[in-house]
């Protein structure tokens, strides 16, 4: 690597250039300005910067992922899995074996919501999600999801990290580890949740044994100020012009330092990282500023925090963020042990329009074909009514990991599909069961990974997201 000469020239040129146009570095890419030399240093940076974009080992159908996480466990027989048989048994015990969930439940609880066929495919969706129903021809609805345990904590861990108990990297961390990010000015894996953390908190987007940079960057989307969204993103003590001057002096110092030492990619990478950080200050603010969207687009996503959060997500996707998780809210909002009709109605109203808007908006921008959308909770709910301590029926449903629904849309997903089935009442997945591991295998497949070969060596063995399980569900793919 004998490059010091032209590199030096490049720096001189760059300084001269910058001196001429003041703080003009913001939008102009280094590579475009400095051609080969900069490419060389970008390569050097790639050796060290783990977030540099990488291609997957196999052809990918999706380049990026948005995961709507309806935390708390939305009810499948009230949304995407109609169960008319429950009406027959209304108020009576269901035939067949009693399935133990976390709390006691009693007789059949017919859905208070109405289903109607939607789209060209005619797939029934309940009136909880009228706008998502309009997009049903884009969705592949899995009605046979299966998790393992009826408690939130292990189920969240399973859905996010592929292991109910032990600390393992989350799906988003795996994906960012495998693919890097297309925009080094922004974190590769962003998690938004308005008002605080979900249950299990930061464990949900943990990096586990992967390096810390792959952990999800949490953003409380209730805030609107960029300083609250990304740490240290603003320079409060020096003007941008002043900071540009500082970085120019820093370049000179580093160059002096480097010239006395032999090629060490880490030195060059760190020089680049300051330039990236400088640009990030403006780029990141821009990404989170939805006031730059036309009113018509803001109207499409609707008012309220979920509309804003989802629209920010689209702006981030456009800018190359790899994996975005959108949680419904702090705690476990969808956990409707009681008053399910009122609670589910309210929650669905919050998310129906934004989620549908994202599908339409991405489609219109030509981005839906390589963006994967995942929609669902950590488990579903019981077809039977939950009982209180005294044994009386409440107006809600208990947790149910044995069968529930999720849907996928976008990159590589066969729209207008219903896959798998639960039993007559919606208790257990019985047909074409899709375990959470299978879902993970399928998502990785869409992103261009063989989930059995996508590993990370830690503690003397190769780990994978799906551990020793998981099968790609081919029927969901185009």
């Amino acid at each position: 690597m004998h490059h010091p000469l032209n590199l030096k020239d490049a720096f001189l040129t760059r300084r001269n250039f910058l001196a001429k146009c003041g703080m003009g570095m913001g939008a102009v890419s280094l590579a475009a300005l400095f051609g080969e030399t900069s490419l060389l240093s970008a390569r050097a940076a790639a050796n060290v910067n783990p977030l540099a974009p990488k291609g997957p080992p196999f052809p990918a159908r999706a380049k990026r992922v948005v995961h709507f996480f309806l935390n708390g466990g939305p009810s499948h027989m009230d949304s995407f899995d109609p169960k008319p048989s429950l009406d027959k048994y209304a108020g009576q015990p269901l035939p067949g074996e009693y399935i133990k969930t976390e709390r006691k439940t009693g007789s059949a609880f017919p859905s208070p919501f109405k289903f109607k066929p939607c789209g060209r495919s005619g797939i029934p969706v309940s009136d909880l999600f009228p706008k998502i129903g309009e997009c049903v021809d884009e969705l592949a609805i899995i009605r046979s999801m299966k998790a393992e345990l009826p408690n939130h904590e292990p189920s969240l861990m399973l859905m996010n990290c592929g292991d109910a108990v032990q600390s393992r990297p989350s799906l988003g961390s795996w994906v960012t580890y495998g693919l890097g990010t297309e925009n080094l000015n922004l974190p590769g894996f962003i998690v938004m949740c308005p008002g605080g953390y979900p249950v299990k908190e930061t464990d949900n987007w943990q990096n586990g044994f992967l390096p810390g940079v792959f952990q999800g960057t949490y953003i409380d989307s209730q805030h609107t100020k960029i300083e609250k969204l990304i740490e240290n993103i603003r320079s409060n003590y020096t003007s941008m012009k002043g900071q540009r001057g500082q970085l120019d002096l820093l370049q000179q110092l580093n160059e002096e330092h480097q010239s006395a030492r032999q090629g060490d990619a880490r030195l060059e990478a760190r020089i680049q990282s300051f330039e990236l950080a400088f640009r990030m200050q403006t780029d990141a603010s821009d990404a989170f500023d939805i006031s730059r969207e036309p009113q018509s687009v803001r109207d499409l996503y609707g008012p309220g925090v979920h509309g804003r959060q989802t629209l920010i997500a689209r702006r981030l996707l456009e800018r190359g963020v790899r994996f975005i998780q959108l949680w419904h809210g702090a705690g476990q909002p969808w956990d409707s042990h009681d008053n399910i009709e009122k609670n589910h109605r309210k929650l669905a109203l919050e998310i129906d329009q934004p989620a549908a808007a994202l599908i339409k908006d991405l489609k219109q921008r030509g981005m839906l074909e390589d963006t994967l959308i995942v929609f669902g909770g950590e488990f579903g709910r019981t077809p039977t009514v939950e009982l209180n301590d005294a044994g009386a029926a409440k107006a809600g449903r208990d947790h149910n990991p044995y069968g529930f629904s999720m849907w996928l849309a976008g990159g590589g997903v066969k729209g207008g599909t219903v896959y798998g089935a639960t039993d007559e009442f919606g208790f257990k997945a019985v047909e074409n069961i899709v375990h959470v591991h299978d879902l993970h295998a399928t998502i990785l497949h869409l992103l261009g990974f063989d989930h059995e070969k996508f590993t990370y060596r830690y503690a003397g063995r190769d780990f994978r997201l799906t551990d020793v399980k998981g099968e790609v569900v081919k029927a969901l793919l185009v």
Partner: protein
Amino acid sequence: MPRRACQFLILLLAVAPALRAADGVAFFEAKVRPLLIARCYECHSAEKEIKGELALDTKAGWQRGGEHGAALVPGKPDDSLLIKAVSYGDPDLQMPPKKRLTAGEVEILRAWVDMGAPDPRIAATARITPLADKYEAARAHWAFQPVQTPSVPQVSANAVRQTGLIAGPQTPIDNFIVAKLVANGLQLSPPADKRTLIRRASFDLTGLPPSPEEVAAFFKDEAPGAFARVVDRLLASPHYGERWGRYWLDVARFADTKGYVYGDREESKFIHSSAYRDWVIGAFNHDLPYDRFITLQIAADQAPGADLDSLAAMGYLTLGRRFLGVVHDIIDDRIDVVMRGTQGLTVGCARCHDHKFDPIPTKDYYSLYGVFAGCTEREVPLNSGPKPAGAYLEFEKELKLREAKFQTLFNEKKEEQSRRLRAKTTDYLVAVLGVEKLPTEEFYSIMQADEVNPVMVRAWHKYLLSTAKAFHPIWAPWHAFAALPANEFVSRAGSIIASATHAAQKLNPLVANAFAEKTPLSMREVAEVYGKLLTGLEKKWSANPTNKLSKPEEELRQVLYAADSPASVPAGAIVDLEWYFDEPTRVALGKLSSQIEQWILQSPGAPPYAVILEDRAAKKNPRVFKRGNPANQGEETPRQFLKILAGENRQPFAKGSGRLDLAEAIASKDNPLTARVFVNRLWLHHFGAGLVRTPSDFGTRAEPPTHPELLDWLARYFMDNGWSVKKVHRLIMLSAVYQQASDAPTDVGGYAKEIDPENKLLWRMNRQRLDFEALRDSLLSASGQLDPSFGGKAEDLFKAPFSKRRSVYGFIDRQFLPGALRAFDFANPDMHNPQRSETTVPQQALFLMNSPFVVEQARALAARVGDSKEAVVATGKSSEARIKQIHHLVYQREPTAREMQGALRFIAAATTGLEEKAAQAIPSAWTYGFGEFDETNKQLKTFKPLPYFNGEAWQGGESWPDAKLGWAQLTATGGHAGNDLQHAVIRRWISPVAGSVAIEGNLQHQHPEGDGIRAWLISSRQGLLGNWVLHNQSAETKIQSVVVKQGDTIDFVVSTHQSLNKNDFLWSPIIRMTGPEAIRDANGYAREWNAPKEFGGAPAEVRKPLTPWEQYAQVLLLGNEFLFVD
């Protein structure tokens, strides 16, 4: 096709009994083998994989069976697991899991089994390497060999000349390294210069840069041994332990918090983390021999000669994540931290199956599991010295109160639960009959008190098993009935009773009578007879416990009341008994117990605490959990050390739980791994890479050491020198290898890079990057702000006012690791971390460019060289002199001519940026305080700022209500009145303008309880503007016009009315300029101050822009030279 297969089968089944062996084989070949290949081999063959340990590609495979046992019983399809699985009868055992076999396919298998499962496949295809083979292979593995005593290679004069070893080998390390360099045609790089050396040594041993004075002294010392004197000085520095202790904390997956906890019942901070951290630092500083270091961390409670304070060492075991109390995971974490930390072995794999590569069978894992399962936790106050009076007494008094509160409830609940269990004896006896159907783990929370508790059912089951070994006067009939086959139960039950009556002299007569009265028709009825008998007696006795019972009655009573009775909650600590209680009780007990911990954490008089493990009284051998599933218990295994390390003649652990035996087995000179693993860790941190490059994996798949003889020689040296860590440091640092430059001369460097690009042979020193702690500490050191004090409570590193202590004392919350720590590759506190990753991301740059902490250091650094005008005048120091000084402080050297020029130019050209920052520099008009309202004079007597902001509210302190300021609180939209008139809350507006303003607002009190609030609106110029008394009502607080001058105040004051009850309120005023002189924006809107919008944490903070000198100082702190050590 299916139909035809069926017809064939009907035919075949009709003649099946008559089939000859040859026909069976033909049937196998024609029908069974293709079916197995098509539908089963995918998951059950050596070619593909062997799931559930079941291979179906050989006869031996199904004969041996999988984890559930033999796959089939020849001739008995109904008893064959294989048939059960493919028939999809059992929801938990359905094979193939995805696509069910057709009815015809199932029939083929059934027929095959029925005919005796003829199977000609004798070839033994390779399975997972059998354990014996693994042992065989492992015996040859270098890491399991005893540590050798290799002789030091001779280095010829020729080699000395060739390799640049000008002064000859300095320590034997040089001989080993140079010998290998010579063999590869390479040479050492030239010795590093003095400045590089002292920087390298200082960062290396203390994590801090040398001071300019230390550098100057080293330059001046030209006598031989100057560098050795530097090394000795650094080894003696207390900062040494802070640096190297932190490396060990990475290994020990250290944190100050427990990870995710149930917020309603558990304190999230550990009470003992700082004591453990300080113990580790102290151990390094005192050069505690490593064998002792390990022994104390595993078994300080039992190690001979250990004093009270060394109990802190056991934080090593007890500071792991709590996994919501799931005991198997806590133990797994402990096994992992011990075995990877000290042995470099990943034993954790063997939790579910034999280790794939290393000779670590599942049984060995459970041998270690048994050691930790045999222990329980205890909190121990430390400080053996005299107790301080005052604060300590206050601590102790309150502690005892809280402990008593907990104990009372605990005893009460234990008694209550025992009573409930006795009353439900019948239910439990019935439940025992279905014990194998119980949920698999204690994972199911027991929500209701009257639910049948699976833990107790298992206890009953165990108890009943224990009565089956010999004739039992009460339970003999139970076992006799249980032995009857179900279909003969009714016909033979009578004979059981007859023989029981026959044995009446031995049998409890009450039991005999009970069965004489009723002949049971099923085991359920047997359970009911026993249940009725026991609960009847229990009722009779508890109605009047003073009545004397007959001997047979007393015998029965003991079933429910004996110390080991399954019908009562045994003695023990709550951590071990949690699952005996229902959810509300667990919450209630948890709350009281966390109140004890909170007191220990917050009381200023609290001594340091340790949380130790203690052996339980009962010594029990563990059972293997098949596939790691505790409900699926396999064979018993003794508590003992790993066979591969302990050898063929290993003995089970003999002392208590075996924890001390375990510590001794590790801290032993005969252990082949302990010394090797640790000297490799030392080497790793000195050179940036270990001799073994997988520092916590010395197993068979690990990369072999680059210098095996050197590794052994060092390990031997370490042990022979009393396991002294400092001696090894010294030996390494005095070598020529350590002291060479980190860049080879260009003429040889190119060649060396081709031969050995990773520098495994050490032809140069590796340049190292400072980790987060060293970087932050160096910033504080350069700015002259570092607080060098030792030990004590952890501090938040990222909250202003910023801590100036060393980073090792920063509070580590494993659940909410601060972003800066993550960005800088800090060790994940959940994982054992042998070596941190090293990444370069822009978030690191943002931290250095923009974080107020770094800005603060830049200011301090500039001030240190006298950057202010006054200082310049006073000292008369030239800019050049100051630039030189700052270079010495930051880089320990003179600036180059070019650097000097650049610096001067920068300082001359830089602006303060004031013009741009003017808007931000305006302080907020609002401040938040409390004070006393003087009712007679209608004015404020005092105003003091509320001291604490939690991100949402201003209040008295971190916890609310505050001990001094009570409930006083102000939020964006309102707040809570203080406890009395002397502590009214005051939202104060300080006018930045002159003119007149209008005030808008709505004051609300929203509770029917209590008697409401009082409020006053006061202008410093015009006096009282309004006052209100509100109880569950609201009022407009509108003032048309108030005249203000700059600096005038308008106060919004709220206090309780009469009683302290529901005194929160809403009041979010807006002040707007009015009149012709009002300042207006481009759209004509008058300037306004909106209380909720402008509410915030910064107390009118003026963000003072950096001066040119400060900006310059910051640039130096950002330089690569600051972060990388040559």
